[in-house]
């Protein structure tokens, strides 16, 4: 599958395209796309912050803002690897199906529409219809979430419901842990 076909496919024929990508696993290209999406989003988000005269930019030293952004971008790549492995592990435990590499590649490609949200938001802000930009950016986020579900579903060959459960479980587990921690602290229990 060529670069053009894969981009077009993720946007308009996501299920078949992500299945194909999860099977063939073009790791290098997938990571490059993920990095490009992350770094470009970073620039667009920064432009939006400047446009909105963000308080964050005033509170933090300029260098710190960019250091945090770049560190965040690098961390997101690491997080992608960890999440891919974790989702595959959860699927293996529950459904006996695993494909960490495929999930990683599919998730990288699933992030592609995410590159549209911030620039559309910024462009519409410049045009004076910021509210419309914010709504569209939100819709793009939903689009990416849907693609992530499809990516997991097609990579592991499970149903949509099972894919949602696999995606939600790490968050749910973290929430339970966090709640337990907060309750422990609030009750003053010594660990």
């Amino acid at each position, binding site marked *: 599958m060529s670069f*053009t*076909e894969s*981009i*077009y496919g993720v*946007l*308009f024929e996501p299920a078949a395209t992500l299945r194909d990508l999860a099977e063939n696993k073009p790791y290098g290209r997938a990571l490059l796309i993920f990095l490009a999406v992350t770094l*470009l989003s970073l*620039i*667009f988000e*920064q*432009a939006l912050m*400047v*446009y909105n005269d963000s308080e964050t*930019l005033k509170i933090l*030293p*300029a*260098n*710190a*803002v*960019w*250091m945090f952004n770049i560190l965040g971008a690098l961390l997101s790549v690491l997080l992608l690897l960890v999440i891919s492995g974790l989702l595959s592990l959860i699927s293996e435990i529950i459904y006996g199906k695993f494909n960490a590499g495929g999930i990683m590649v599919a998730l990288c490609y699933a992030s592609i529409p995410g*590159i*549209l949200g911030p*620039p559309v938001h*910024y*462009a519409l802000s*410049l045009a004076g219809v910021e509210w419309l930009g914010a709504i569209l950016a939100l819709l793009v986020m939903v689009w990416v979430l849907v693609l992530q579900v499809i990516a997991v579903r097609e990579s592991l060959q499970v149903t949509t419901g099972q894919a949602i459960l696999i995606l939600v479980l790490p968050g749910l587990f973290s929430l339970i842990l966090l709640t337990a921690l907060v309750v422990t602290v609030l009750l003053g229990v010594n660990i």
Partner: protein
Amino acid sequence: MNKKLVVGVLVLFLAVMTIVSLWGITNAGGRGKLAGGSAIGVIEINGVISGETGGGLLSGYSANAMDIMESIRQAREREDIKAVVLRIDSPGGSAVASQEIALELDRLRQEGKKVITSMGDMCTSGGYWIACSSDYIMANGATLTGSIGVIMQLSNLEGLYEKVGIKEEVIKSGKHKDMGSATRTLTEEERRLLEDIVGDSYDQFLDQVLKGRSGKISREKLLEVADGRIISGRQALELGLVDGIGNYYDALDKARETAGLPEDSPVEILNGIDFWKSLGLSVLGELSEQVQGRFIELRYQ
């Protein structure tokens, strides 16, 4: 063909928006320019005043003279900026950098634009030098200011070099060419020459204060406190070294009042964030400069 067109349009959109975004970030200071309107420009001087160009990870808390002068020039050129508030929170720094900034402020005032200084925690030495080039100085009661004086610090590492077995061979065109060298003690003649420089710079500092505070403090009274001591904002007011006590917002109000602007006139920070410098790309150049070192530098601090 259709797929290529769709992806092509997408890539083109992203490329255009990347350029627009970078332009927006880089020109953050110019955003909000008012067509036919009037605004107050704020220039922040935070940290040690330095003449070094560039800025990176290590320069988060230094006030770069080049950047500040550029902002002053911007205020001078922009018709919508009617007054400038200098927000100074600095212990001083390079004598030359302070002079350069003050000179640029004088030029701004010659254009008829009012300059109001708002002192933060500290506005001493070089910071006070700069403040003297404004029409009105507002300090907080507990602001540390003053420190009118000049200092030159030299390190004599002769003993250390002897211990580690380093002996410097000097070939020089004149007897004073290595004046201030860290490898030997100053001669009496060299000490006198350097003291003359410090004395001359001190006189220049006094002249700057007397010019900026003309009619508000006499030379005699100034000499009593111009011994390097720091004083509070309230003491400075009693001495005539500042004009009023108030915070940043009072300074903005004063700027509006002196420039005849309405109460709701907008405020724009002129030396905002610099995109490229904030990436810290110039950090290696800075380190190199520090290693090469300029062993003599006059400092108002």
